[in-house]
C-alpha cells in the first residue's frame, strides 16, 4: 500500500534582543554560566515581569513578513509545568490569543537538477506567539547542573499547519523560514547555538485517505539536516509499523541525529495539563495600524521575492541566484556591484562574486563583512575587462591581489603594468609584420586551414610583450588576411 505522510512543524526562534523578554538582564550566548541572571530570571520571591518592547516589535514584524493577521489585542498566559530549567515552573506564553494568526511560508522543493529551479509551494501557518526560553541543564552522572543564562530569552513559536508531506518539504520549510528571519534581522537562527529549534508532528495514512493518522511528536531536531533525516526516519518507522500490522501510538520521541535513531520519551508522558490562565502580572498588548505600518516599513524583501527579481531584472542564471540569495549580504554586495558596473554586466559580476569572491573568502576564512574587496572593486574590474584593458589571466591575478590588499584594480593594473595594448595602430603594425614573416601559414589559412591563424599570434603577443587583447589580435589578423586577397 502507498502511504502519505502528514507533517506539521513547531519552530522556536530566539529573538535577537539585548535584554530578556520580561526583565532587563542582558541576553546573549557564550557567556560564563549564570552571569546573565537577575532576580526576575531566577524567579526569586517577589519579582515581577515587564515585557520587552523590541521583542514585541520583532514578532509583529515576523507576522507581517509572513502574511499573518496581527491580532488587535493579545494577552499573556501562564503555562504551568515543573522542570528544573524553568525557574518559575511556569512559562509565560500566549495560549488562546496569540499575537499572529495565519500566514504562510513559501518553500522551494529540489528541482530535477541542481541548476534547475524546483517547484514552489506555500505552507500555511497556524499561528506565531511570543514566549520566554528556559535555562540549560547539563546532565552529569550523579546530578544535573543548571545554567540560567538562556532563561528568559525572548522566543517566538511558529506553528505550521499539518500541510507538509515529505522530509524534503519540512527541510525546505525550515530553510526558507530561517532565511526570512535572518533577512529581517529577527534572529541569527544559528541552530548550533539553539537559536532555532524544531519539533515535528508526524503521522502517516493510506494514500487517498482524508482522516489523519495518529501523530507522533518528534523532538530534538537540532540541526537542519537532522530535521530532514529525523523526519524521513520517522516516516519510514511508522510505515514499517503499519505494514507489519502494528498500530502507531501517540507519543513523543527523541531523535538522535548521531545514530539516526529515535527513542520514545515515555517518562515525559505524565499527562500534561498545563493549567493555562491569563498572567495577572502582565497587561494585554494592543497593536494598532500605526505600529504595524512602522514595522511594515522595516520589513525586507523576502528571499524568494528577491530571487525572482534577480532572475527577471538582472537576467542572471538560477544557479547564480541560488548562491547569492541564501546570503543576504552577498546578494546585496552583488546589487551594489551591478549598480556600479551597469546592468548589462550583471551576469559577469555575478560570476565573479559567486565563484571568485566566495573562493577567496573561503580560502582566507574571512567573512564578507570583513572583506577588503568591496562592490566597487568588482565593478571596476569588470569595466576594465569589458574595455579590453585587462585580460583574463591577468584579471584573476588582479582579483586575488585586490582581495588581499583592498587596492583598487585600476591602480594594481597601472602599478604592475598590466594594461593591455589597445592602440590599434601598433597592433596592426605587429600583425602585418607577423603575416609578412610567415607566408606559408598565410597560404595555409587561405587554403582553408583555420588553425594556421595561431602561427601568427605568438609573434604578435611577443611583440606586444604579452599585453595584446587576444580577441583584438584575432580580429585584426583575419581582417588583414581578408584584405590581402
Amino acid at each position, binding site marked *: 500500500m502507498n502511504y502519505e505522510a502528514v507533517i506539521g512543524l513547531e519552530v522556536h526562534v530566539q529573538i535577537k534582543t539585548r535584554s530578556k523578554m520580561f526583565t532587563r538582564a542582558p541576553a546573549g550566548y557564550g557567556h560564563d554560566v549564570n552571569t546573565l541572571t537577575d532576580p526576575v530570571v531566577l*524567579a526569586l*520571591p517577589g519579582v515581577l515581569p515587564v515585557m520587552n518592547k523590541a521583542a514585541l516589535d520583532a514578532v509583529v514584524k515576523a507576522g507581517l513578513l509572513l502574511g499573518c493577521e496581527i491580532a488587535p489585542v493579545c494577552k499573556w498566559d501562564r503555562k504551568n509545568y515543573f522542570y528544573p530549567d524553568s525557574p518559575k515552573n511556569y512559562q509565560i506564553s500566549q495560549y488562546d490569543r496569540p499575537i499572529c494568526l495565519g500566514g504562510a511560508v513559501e518553500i522551494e522543493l529540489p528541482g530535477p537538477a541542481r541548476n534547475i529551479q524546483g517547484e514552489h509551494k506555500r505552507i500555511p501557518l497556524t499561528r506565531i506567539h511570543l514566549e520566554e526560553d528556559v535555562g540549560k541543564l547539563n546532565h552529569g552522572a550523579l546530578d544535573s547542573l543548571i545554567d540560567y543564562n538562556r532563561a528568559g530569552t525572548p522566543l517566538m513559536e511558529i506553528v505550521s499547519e499539518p500541510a507538509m508531506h515529505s522530509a524534503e518539504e519540512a527541510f525546505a520549510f525550515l530553510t526558507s523560514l530561517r532565511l526570512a528571519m535572518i533577512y529581517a534581522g529577527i534572529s541569527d537562527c544559528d541552530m548550533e547555538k539553539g537559536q532555532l529549534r524544531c519539533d515535528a508532528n508526524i503521522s502517516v495514512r493510506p494514500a487517498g485517505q482524508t482522516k489523519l493518522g495518529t501523530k507522533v511528536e518528534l523532538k530534538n531536531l537540532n540541526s537542519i539536516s537532522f530535521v530532514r533525516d529525523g523526519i524521513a526516519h520517522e516516516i519510514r518507522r511508522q510505515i514499517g509499523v503499519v505494514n507489519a500490522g502494528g498500530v502507531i501510538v501517540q507519543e513523543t520521541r527523541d531523535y538522535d541525529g548521531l545514530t539516526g535513531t529515535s527513542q520514545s520519551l515515555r517518562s515525559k508522558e505524565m499527562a500534561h495539563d498545563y493549567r493555562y490562565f491569563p498572567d*495577572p502580572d502582565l497587561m494585554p498588548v494592543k497593536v494598532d495600524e500605526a505600529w504595524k505600518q512602522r514595522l511594515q516599513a522595516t520589513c525586507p524583501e523576502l528571499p524568494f521575492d528577491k530571487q525572482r527579481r534577480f532572475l527577471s531584472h538582472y537576467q542572471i542564471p538560477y544557479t547564480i541566484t541560488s548562491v547569492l540569495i541564501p546570503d543576504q549580504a552577498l546578494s546585496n554586495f552583488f546589487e551594489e556591484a551591478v549598480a556600479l558596473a551597469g546592468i548589462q554586466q550583471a551576469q559577469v559580476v555575478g560570476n565573479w562574486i559567486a565563484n571568485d569572491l566566495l573562493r577567496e573568502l573561503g580560502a582566507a576564512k574571512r567573512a564578507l563583512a570583513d572583506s577588503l574587496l568591496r562592490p566597487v572593486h568588482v565593478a571596476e574590474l569588470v569595466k576594465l575587462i569589458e574595455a579590453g584593458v585587462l585580460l583574463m589571466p591577468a584579471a584573476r591575478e588582479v582579483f586575488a591581489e585586490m582581495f588581499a590588499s583592498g587596492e583598487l584594480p585600476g591602480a594594481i593594473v597601472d602599478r604592475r603594468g598590466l594594461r593591455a595594448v589597445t592602440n590599434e595602430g601598433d597592433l596592426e603594425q605587429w600583425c602585418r609584420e607577423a603575416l609578412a614573416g610567415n607566408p606559408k601559414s598565410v597560404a595555409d589559412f587561405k587554403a582553408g586551414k583555420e588553425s594556421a591563424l595561431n602561427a601568427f599570434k605568438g609573434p604578435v603577443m611577443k611583440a606586444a610583450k604579452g599585453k595584446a587583447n587576444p580577441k583584438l589580435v584575432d580580429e585584426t589578423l583575419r581582417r588583414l588576411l581578408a584584405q590581402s586577397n
Partner: protein
Amino acid sequence: MSSEPFFRSIGELSAALARGELSSVDLMRSVIARTEAVEPKVRAFNSFDREDALAQARSSDLRRAAGASLGPLDGIPIGMKDVIAVAGQPLTASSRMLANFVSPYDATVVKRLRAAGAICWGRLNLDEFAMGSSTENSAFQATANPYALDCVPGGSSGGSAAAVAAGEAIASLGSDTGGSIRQPAAFCNVVGLKPTYGLVSRYGLIAFASSLDQIGPFARSVEDVAILLGAIAGHDPLDSTSFHTGIPDYRAELDRRKGPWRLGIPKEYFGEGLDPEVAEAVQRAVAHYQKLGCEVKPVSLPHTEYGVGVYYIIATAECSSNLARYDGVRYGHRSKEAKDAVDLYFRSRAEGFGSEVKRRIILGTYVLSSGYYDAFYLRAQKVRTLIRNDFLAAYREVDAILTPTAPTPAFRRGAKADPLAMYLCDVYTIGVNLAGLPAVSVPCGFSQDGRPIGMQLIGQPYGEAELLGIARAYERDHPWAQKRPVL
C-alpha cells in the same frame, strides 16, 4: 500623649527630631528596648537586627546634622511584613520553605522608604505566604493580640498590626489580598490601609494572588498612614500593573477634605453573622458622620454573597502558580530524601509548605485543571466583574462606603480550626480586593471585654486622599487608637 518615644506618632517624632529633642538613635533604642520587653508576649517579629537598625539610625542623625534631612520619615523605624524584600535581610514569608532565604534585592517600597530616610526595622510575622486570617499559620510562631493575649491579632499581616499596636514599631507595612491589612488593623486597634490596586508597586512583595495583592501601611493614626502612603505610592516601571497617577500630598490633603460626604451603608454587610457589639460600634460611627452633616444612604452590593467563592477560586488559582517556584532548586527548602529531580519537587514542597498553603495550592491547581477552568476560574472572573460593577454603581450615589471591617472582634487562638469558617471571616474585606478599590480600617471602639473593633471605609479608585480625609474626620473626635494595650 504618651511620653515614651516608641508610642509617639510620626508627626510628633519628626518634629522632635527636627528640634533636636531626640535623635534617631534615641528613638531606635527606645523601640528596641520596648520590643525586647514585650516581644516574649506579642511575638510579632520573625527576626530583627539591632545593629543594622542602629546603623540606619546613625545615618539619619548624620544627615540631619548635615542639614540634609529627607522628610518626615527620616530616622523613623518602620516594620516590614516578612514578605517584603529587603536586601541583605531574611525573607521568609513565615514559611519553612524560606526559613534560610536572604533577599539579594530591595522591594520598590523599600527603595522608596530608604530614599525617604526611614529605618527598615525587623521582619514581621504573618500567616505563611499571607494565607490566613489569624497569623496562626506561621511556621515559626503564633503572634498574640496585644489587647487580648489569648486572641489572634488577625491576619495575614498579624505581626505588622501587633507590632505597631504594642509600640514595637512606629508604623509598618503589610500586604492585603483579601483583607490581610484591614482585618488585623481592626483586631489590633490600629489604622490599616489597603490602597487601590496599582497605586503601590508590588515589586519585591512575595506574591500570593497577583491580581489582588497590595502593600499598605499600618499606623496608630490616619495621619501617619497618610505620611507612609505618600512615601510608598507611585508608578513603578518594574511592576506592569502599577498605575501612572499623580500622588497628592496625602498628609496635607487630610485637613483640606472637609465633606460633608455621602456615605453608603450596604445592607449585605450588616446581616447574619455580624457580632452585635461590632454592629453597634459601627452604627455609632455612622451616627457620628451624620452628626458631622454627612448624608448616610443605604446602598446595595447584591453580589456580596459570592465574594468568598470568587475570591477563593481566583486567589488559590493564582497562588498555585505563584508558589510553583518554591521547588528547592534555586533557593528554599530542599528535601534531603530526594531520589531524583522530580522527587525533589514532591518532597521539598511537601516538607517546606504548611498545611494551609498546601490546601490552597491543591484547590487552585484543581480549579485550573483541564475540564474545570471554565466552570471555576472563568466563571469566577465573570462574577468578579459583577462584584466590581456593584461598587461602581454604588459610587454613582455615594462618596464612600462604610462597613464593619470584620464580623467579630479578635477570636481566640485555635477557635477556627475549620478552613471554611476561617475563610468566611474575610467576607467584608474580600469585595474590595476583587474590585481593586482602596479601603481603610479605622478603630471605632472596643467590645465589653476590651477587644478592639474596626470599621472599614471603602473609597473610589485612586481616591485615597478623600478616603483618608473621611477617616480623619471620624478619628479627630474618636481617637480610639490612642488607647494603649496593657502589656
